[in-house]
């Protein structure tokens, strides 16, 4: 068993969550104001998952992400300025403006990309995990994917291969109850995706994805197992997205009720975590507010940086197609 998070770790997780929340909220506003082109899938509500897992990882550990990828990159150390620049399509963006929200990535931080193809991450993470072992490191790969993605063949193939080769990888299913506008009950017959783990020959666990400490502890166990060469784990985090599938209000479809949303918002992962930190005497409400203010200022500075960044010169169009 990994130890419970110490105070420094708790504060670190809190800051990661706060960074995601404020970045995503501002990105949502910018999108609604027409300042961010294309599609934007926001992570608000799911912060405890990215923060709780990423608190264990270094830049030498790899992750694969999803179309809902900003939270993963922020938790992995992404800088606001370069992230906003990417969302705006500017030349200082992490992908020089060529990828945008759906392909945001950073190799130095061990972030193998958001992905526009649902279910594309797990097989790539298998490759990264293979690479970690091949190079005889203790590094690992973590693949984040949704409940919807767990129905792609690519996930099943990756899970089987990871278990077969005992690779240092953790499969983190962020089950937010929906794949786009389809509720989980209409897309799979299981309630717990983690139930599938024994079928691949790996342990599975269900975690409260609104509880950052629970995520941190469960991820710790799985990651230790992976680093020790004991093979993969399937960790399912039950969570919820507070915004629509795309953007904040999305297409305005009524596929989930206001009551359901309100119920989950009662369990806002950041509010819950701040209550806990206050009870533990680690962070009082005033200090939490100070963290929020500091992050908000960094987010504003990031937006300014991005707005000042030039659009890519059309001359770079054909750069980077090949090495």
């Amino acid at each position, binding site marked *: 068993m990994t130890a419970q998070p110490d105070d420094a770790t708790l504060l670190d997780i809190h800051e990661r969550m706060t960074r995601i929340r404020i970045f995503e909220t501002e990105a949502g506003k910018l999108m609604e104001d027409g300042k961010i*082109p294309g599609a934007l899938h926001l992570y608000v509500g799911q912060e405890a998952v990215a923060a709780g897992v990423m608190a264990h990882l270094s830049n030498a550990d790899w992750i694969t992400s999803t179309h809902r990828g900003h939270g993963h990159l922020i938790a992995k150390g992404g800088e606001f300025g370069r992230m906003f620049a990417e969302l705006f399509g500017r030349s200082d963006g992490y992908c020089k403006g060529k990828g945008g929200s*759906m392909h945001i990535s950073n190799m130095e931080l061990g972030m193998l990309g958001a992905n526009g193809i649902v279910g594309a991450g797990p097989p790539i993470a298998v490759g990264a995990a293979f690479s970690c072992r091949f190079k005889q490191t203790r590094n690992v790969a973590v693949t984040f994917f949704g409940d919807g993605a767990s129905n792609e*063949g690519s996930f099943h193939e990756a899970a089987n291969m990871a278990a077969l080769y005992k690779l240092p990888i953790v499969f983190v299913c962020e089950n937010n109850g929906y794949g786009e506008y*389809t509720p989980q009950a209409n*897309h799979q017959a299981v309630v717990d995706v983690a139930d599938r783990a024994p079928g691949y020959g790996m342990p599975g666990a269900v975690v409260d994805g609104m509880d950052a400490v629970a995520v941190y502890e469960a991820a710790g166990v799985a990651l230790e197992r992976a680093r020790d060469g004991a093979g993969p784990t399937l960790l399912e985090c039950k969570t919820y997205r507070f915004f629509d599938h795309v953007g904040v209000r999305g297409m305005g*479809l009524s*596929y989930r009720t206001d009551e359901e949303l309100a119920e989950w918002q009662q369990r806002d992962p950041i509010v819950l975590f701040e209550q806990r930190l206050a009870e533990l005497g680690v962070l009082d409400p005033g200090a939490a507010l100070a963290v929020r203010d500091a992050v908000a200022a960094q987010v504003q500075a990031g937006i300014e940086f991005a707005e000042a960044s030039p*659009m*890519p010169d059309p001359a770079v169009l054909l750069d980077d197609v090949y090495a």
Partner: protein
Amino acid sequence: MAEAEAVPAVRELTYVRAINEAVRLVLAEQSTAFVAGEDVAGAGSVFGYYAGLLEEFGPERVFDTPISEEGIVGLGVGAAATGLRPVIDIMFMDFMGECMDEITNQMAKMRYMFGGAATLPITLLTMSGAGMNMAAQHSQSLEAWLCHLPGLKVVMPATPYDAKGLIIAAARDDNPVIVALNKMSLRFKGEVPEAAYEVPIGAANIVRRGENFTIVTYSRMVHEALQAAQELAELGVDAEIIDLRSLQPLDSETVLASVRKTHRAMVVHEAVRFGGLGGEIAAQIQEHAFDDLDAPVGRVGAPFSPVPFSPQLEKSYVPNAAKIVAEARRLLGA
């Protein structure tokens, strides 16, 4: 009553409404037709073109699938081979990769491999095209992959009229037909008859008559070509524009007849130029009308890179009227 019937029932409809009407008519006239795909039922598709169909035809005939493209297309292949007439939706053409075995090795070949014993009346609707800052995995035009597969038919409608007529023709066809729609065209309006009519698969449409330059194109580039033709007219070029509508089978006769008249030709598509349909069409023209040509056959297509996200880059990437005019000028030495 007779008077009312004499009035042709034609209205202005958007491309998206025309698709909706076509699928509704297909479900109404074919009791074994059903629609399956991701978010096609409850949400009526992310593009809105199946809106209302679940309510009208019920969950046995219009249903949401898991995010399992290989499974979805496989379901279509198996259901078609055993007597149903599936309408399968793959949300974005970019996701073809997920189900390419079912398309390439099963759907396209089953009839032939079985010595003609199996029939696969599948209509597969999907969405192509750039222009909406959807980046590299939601903006592609991959029709060349599909046209290379014997056993498949491939159509790409440019207008609401053709969208409706081609979908109905596809659904009545006993072969697998891929209908690749265009996302920038969803709000385009045009006249659409109320009746169930077919646009024949394999018949091109001459959308502008002209005397001295043939532009062969399809899908959204038809509209760019029409715009280019106005500019070209100022240069004394009278362009004839052929909307292929169907890429497989290809209406080579219409193309060749036009080139024999105009003596100059260019092919325009949104897909990457290298390995695109333009190469095939240019080759056919030189094979069959070499002596009629006054200049090499030109090609306009996207450059050899993935579709970039940044709006400015995407704009310079996607072919448009200006690029068509520039290519025409080059060919004319003007």
